[in-house]
């Protein structure tokens, strides 16, 4: 399945300046597994955005199809083909 990850400039510069990254994953996965995959591909993003942790760090917001995953099932939120994931610094919501 295909998942689209969207990043603002501040994170895109840590992912080869890509604001949109298409991730091809073999089957329906939980958000945590997809963020792990992203973190493995872009180590700088892992460090700054705190991806690959057991919880979503307070300084970022992660959205699944527009909804903050803190109000869904967090890293256990199930992703489906065609879904969009957005990762933004929490400051952006000020």
């Amino acid at each position, binding site marked *: 399945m295909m998942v689209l990850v969207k990043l*603002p400039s501040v994170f895109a510069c840590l992912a080869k300046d890509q604001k949109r990254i298409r991730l091809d994953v073999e089957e329906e996965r939980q958000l945590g597994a997809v963020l792990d995959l992203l973190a493995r591909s872009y180590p700088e993003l892992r460090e700054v955005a705190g991806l690959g942790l057991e919880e979503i760090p307070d300084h970022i917001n992660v959205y699944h199809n527009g909804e903050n995953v803190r109000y869904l099932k967090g890293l256990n939120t199930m992703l489906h083909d065609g879904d969009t994931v957005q990762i933004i610094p929490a400051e*952006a*919501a000020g």
Partner: protein
Amino acid sequence: MIIDRPESHFIFVVPRSHFYGDYNYINYQGRQLTNREYLDHWGKWIIFGPVEELAGLAKKIDPYVEKKMVPAAKYDREIIGEFKLGECVMCVYCDMRQREEVWDILCALGVDEKMWVFERETMERWLPGGRLLEKWITGQGMSEEQGERVREGAKERFRKMFEDPEAVFRGVEQ
């Protein structure tokens, strides 16, 4: 109407009747929200972009704001250096119970980044210990004493603002 006052960091889009009259855009289906309802339901769609793009979008949103189909919006006049976002941000405000209708309008105007933030999330971050307030204090190069005064002021302002959960919400000074 677009309110562009150079002394404010934000440029606002609000209904003319809100600015000049007694209409309050913080409402749901015409009924003003209480403090409790504000914290439970009020929020915003956020949109990133260069200021020129956000200014163009603000002009497109303005007619919908006048028709009260979109309650209000605001965007950064310039990038906020302290937060290191590298982009400006627009907030398009509404009650979460009408957010999909507002989203449909934004979508029709070309917005494709869908991110909803409750206002209570933002407020928590501007309280003492909250990420935004602490980063702002650091970014301003304040002494420990100055920082403490700012924290106390923020705490007191929020306490006063929400001390009666059933009172009509009166807004946040910006």
